[in-house]
């Protein structure tokens, strides 16, 4: 019954738009959130890769109760499915090889599932670069806490990566601005401050960033030789 519904395709946009409206699930009181005014996991698409036994069915049912969109997958495919907000997958021996992304570049939050009494395997979990773990059978509160924290960590990691990309870009832009200033100072025989003001005025009147103006000047200088 669980996999009748087709998985919703990647809906990063929808999720991102949801996020600011509902408070972070992690910040809530530790009661089952589904009794609260909002459903923090509403429409969160989740691939659930586990056997369709009683425990697996319970997990899928619990996710449905949370208004998430679980999609049951079994047996484990050679590559975990892409395009879900989260993937729950049994911690099998070769799971790291089935993770379709590189560690450090995850595309979904990954939660590994373990049966009760399974051995503790920290190396295997690290190699999957998982964001959380859930022991089955899982009580409703554990499911919510794990899902909330896993998504939190995943999204935090993504923001950090974004910040680093932005920093790299800023560094490049700063280098361009410095070079553009040097070029203007030489060409127009003006002071550093005047050169910067010229850059600023150009950026304002063209409604583009100072970095973009600087890049244009540096590029044209390179073209002119």
């Amino acid at each position: 019954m669980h996999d009748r519904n087709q998985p919703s395709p990647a809906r990063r946009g929808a999720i991102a738009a949801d996020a600011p409206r509902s408070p972070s699930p992690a910040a809530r009181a530790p009661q089952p959130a589904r009794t609260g005014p909002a459903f923090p996991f509403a429409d969160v698409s989740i691939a659930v890769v586990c056997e369709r036994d009683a425990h697996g069915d319970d997990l899928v049912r619990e996710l449905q109760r949370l208004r998430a969109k679980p999609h049951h997958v079994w047996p484990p495919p050679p590559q975990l499915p892409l395009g879900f907000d989260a993937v729950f997958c049994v911690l099998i021996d070769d799971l790291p090889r089935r993770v379709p992304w590189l560690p450090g570049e995850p595309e979904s939050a990954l939660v590994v599932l373990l049966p009760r009494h399974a051995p503790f395997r920290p190396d295997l979990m690290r190699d999957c670069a998982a964001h959380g773990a859930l022991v089955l059978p899982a009580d409703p509160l554990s499911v919510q806490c794990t899902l909330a924290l896993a998504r939190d960590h995943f999204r935090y990691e993504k923001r950090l990566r974004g910040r680093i990309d932005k920093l790299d870009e800023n560094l490049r832009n700063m280098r361009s601005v410095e070079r553009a200033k040097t070029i203007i100072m030489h060409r127009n025989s003006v002071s550093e401050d005047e050169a910067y003001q010229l850059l600023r005025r150009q950026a304002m009147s063209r409604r583009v960033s100072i970095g973009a103006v600087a890049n244009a000047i540096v590029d044209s200088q390179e073209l002119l030789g």
Partner: protein
Amino acid sequence: MRSSSQTTEPWRVGVLFSQSGFMAVIEETQLRGTLTAIDEVNAAGGINGRPIEPVIYDPGSESRAFGRLAKKLMVDDGVSTIFGCYTSSSRRAVLPVVERLNGLLWYPTLYEGFEFSPNVIYTGAAPNQNSVELCRLLMEMYGRRFFFIGSDYVYPRESNRIMGELVRASGGEVVGERYLRLNAERSEFSPLLREVKDAQPDVIFSTVVGQSTVFLYQTYHDFGFDPKVTPIASLTTTEAEIQAMGHDVGEGHVTAAPYFQGLGGTRNSSFVQLYKKRYGEDQSTNMCLEAAYFQVHLFAKTLEQTNSLDTEVLRTSALGVELDAPQGKVAVNPVCGHTDLWTRIGRANRQGQFDIVYESPSRVRADPYLIGYARSLAFA
């Protein structure tokens, strides 16, 4: 977790250099340098009684394969220390993997700087250790008009930005800048060199890498340029490329590097001898090979103290370690995880070796962000 007690089990490490594809010409020598050092360490009894065991894969000059194989090394082979990478694109492919799984990449290649990963030890030259002096010397010896040629990827574009700023800051001029795809064919160089001929530069500054390097110099030779008047200056053309293009073709061209085979010194002689004994009398050492070689010894010296491959422990202990390398005494700079190296400029001779025309008075501190240099240069 991965530390040793009383055991003779080997220390397993990963090795990632291309043995096939267009980067093999230089990466193959880095693989040899790595293996030479590993065998040397093992022949002397290993590290605390345990040999180093390399797990070697061939990424075939494909950046994405570097990322995939780094994951394989760390996940399937349980390795946390990796020696490897030549191109910046391959290093950037490995970076997220070692950063997330907390591995340690030892990177033995000069690069464009402006990077600092807590999961990398950099043992090749940063721009302040080669470009700065090269620019000054070229201006002095040949003139002010530069033509830039590069392979189209991260490193050449970034190095040329820095070099371009250096040239302009010293009153020179960049009269042309062209990029060819990474594995450019020989035929693609003819129109390019016709353009160079028209532009009449005093120096051709090349950041062409891999197999195409040979085509650039050979086409230059065919066009009848005179290296005494308009040499090709490079940060990447080593003895390996000179050997591949022919000694007569390479003669007179200029390269900046921390190391040349032609250096004197007993440490270098024994290194060169060891290498020739393994790979043949006609085989030359080069800067990338030397870095690949000495970084294994840096690793061994560090591991001897830590007796643990745990990345945190290993990296912390590697910072500040000093080593008598073939190029002279080097040290891992504790501030930036890059290596303090020697700056040298060589001119290729008829024997395919470099005569040293400049040498820094002492090793030069690594400054990957060019913080100690003029601001216009730091942001070049």
